[in-house]
């Protein structure tokens, strides 16, 4: 089990970073900087390594560093690996990025003041994950100063998995289904929740898993990744920051596909037209009570339902790999999550052209 985590931790993207031409004041222009960026890291953390490369050619002024890929300003608080998986559907090696030291697009990107900003963003995400898993942020808030430093350094350097695991285990962020006896060969699977309560019958309660889903849609099919449309605007990506809720039902396996579908109910959920729901639909507020039972609800509602506008999952990419969708979700979470305990999933959906008109 350690192996998968280790691979993830050590994963890196080769970057070729070009200084934006408007900031080149010398001839010949500087060569691009080549750097290996940890997948679990963040772009601003690379600046101390890149800056010396371009220092002598920069125009006078204060540094306000930001990165861009094919004109798209990159959100610095998204882990580097996720940016790559999302924006580079056909992986480009090295990944060619442009760096700016001036003219920060403050109307689009939230400010970044170097390592401190990244660290705070990381800790905030960790708190959010802690809240999702445990219902409070206490463990993170009560971390000792040395532990905090150790945690951040292990992430910052992305070198010391053991150090990270040591500190991180104190946070008691074992997620639902984390402890499981998996018999992957036979396909059977029993999940148990490590943090939930069990009642007398052994039924476990719902657990929540921190997930960040980045979804983009295509209306035309593509077979080759090269033919996939380029994402040239953040508006084309739907960012869903919502926990996946899972049950630990005996004998039932909650798969990666189940998890993805539970976060996109409008594409996959069967709608039940009971009296209760139709009375809730008023005016422009067409609200569907979100099912908190993931995929397990479907069989109960079969009698009075119609399929929604079903989409097809074209691509699911996590940490640069495309896991088989039948894999137990808890395995995916435990092995592919980022250090702040969020699982980042990039999904491409193919949606049909003809859409059911909205009632609203």
């Amino acid at each position: 089990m350690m192996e998968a985590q280790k691979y993830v931790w050590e994963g890196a993207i080769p970057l070729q970073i070009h200084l934006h031409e408007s900031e080149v004041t010398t001839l010949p222009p500087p060569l691009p900087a080549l750097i290996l960026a940890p997948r679990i890291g963040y772009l601003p953390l690379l600046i101390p390594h890149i800056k010396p490369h371009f220092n002598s050619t920069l125009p006078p002024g204060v540094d306000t560093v930001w990165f861009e890929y094919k004109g798209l300003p990159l959100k610095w608080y998204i882990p580097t690996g996720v940016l790559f998986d999302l924006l580079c559907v056909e992986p480009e090696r090295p990944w060619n990025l442009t760096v700016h030291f001036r003219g920060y697009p403050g109307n689009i990107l939230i400010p970044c003041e170097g390592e401190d900003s990244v660290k705070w963003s990381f800790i905030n995400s960790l708190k959010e994950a802690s809240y999702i898993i445990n219902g409070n942020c206490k463990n993170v808030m009560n971390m000792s100063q040395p532990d905090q430093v150790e945690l951040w350094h292990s992430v910052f350097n992305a070198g010391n998995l053991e150090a990270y695991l040591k500190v991180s285990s104190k946070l008691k962020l074992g997620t639902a289904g984390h402890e499981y006896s998996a018999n992957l060969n036979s396909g059977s699977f029993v999940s148990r929740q490590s943090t939930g309560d069990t009642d007398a019958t052994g039924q476990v309660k719902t657990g929540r898993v921190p997930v960040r889903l980045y979804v983009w849609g295509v209306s035309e099919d593509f077979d080759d990744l090269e033919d996939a449309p380029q994402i040239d605007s953040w508006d084309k990506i739907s960012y869903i920051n919502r926990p996946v809720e899972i049950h630990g039902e005996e004998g039932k396996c909650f798969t990666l596909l189940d998890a993805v579908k539970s976060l996109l109910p409008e594409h996959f959920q069967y709608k039940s037209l009971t009296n209760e729901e139709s009375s809730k639909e008023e005016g422009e507020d067409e609200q569907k009570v979100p099912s908190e039972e993931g995929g397990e609800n479907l069989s109960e509602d079969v009698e009075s339902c119609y399929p929604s506008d079903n989409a097809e999952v074209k691509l699911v990419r996590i940490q640069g790999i495309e896991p088989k969708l039948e894999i137990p979700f808890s395995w995916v979470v435990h092995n592919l999550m980022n250090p702040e305990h969020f699982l980042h999933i990039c999904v491409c959906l193919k949606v049909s052209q003809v859409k059911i008109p909205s009632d609203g």
Partner: protein
Amino acid sequence: MDISSWDGTISLAEFHVAARALVEKWKRVSSASPPWSWVSCPKQPWVASHEVEGYLSLENIILVSIKEEHDELLSFPQKEETSCSDKEESIDIATLSQSDRDEICYYDLHIVYSASYRVPVLYFRVYYSDGEPLEFEDIKKHLPAHSAKTLLDSKWTFITQEEHPYLKRPWYKLHPCGTGEWMKLLFQGDVSLARNGAAIEVYLISWLSFVGQVVGLRIPYEMLNQL
């Protein structure tokens, strides 16, 4: 609702109910003030969907601290209208001196549901009359005194700057970390709230009465009355 076992959080569906209740009551009670409105947003911009999410919005309002010592805060609509309730001082904006007028800044307030924390979250932006956004340091100066102090004591854990979940632009946000806990305390402390079956309907109103103090939004007294 069983208050004793409740953790102070609400579901998305409950948020919608509470939001509707806030909008309606605010309109009824505070008809002279700009109204809270619900803004619907499609979940995925690139595909027509039955599913809409949304948030509450109150924009272009002025929150002015008249006298620092008294820490009195008003919320009143723009320009000529003044809210005239016995419980509030009314201000005729025309009598403000020129320097005061230069200090006037506008707030946009959005209430967005957080699926992670299962509570509402306040997002806001502050700008001058020409639309120029205020720097964080200047915002602190405009905040009520006690709010600014708390900010200084626990810097980044209080107000953070994050991307607005729907507008995808940098907004300020009040960190939702402790919300569940103090909402539970709030409800536990009010026996009539606990007994009242319509507790969800007042959830947002109660929440706003606390959270609004950070930015200096005064909730009309009548909003907090149980019907």
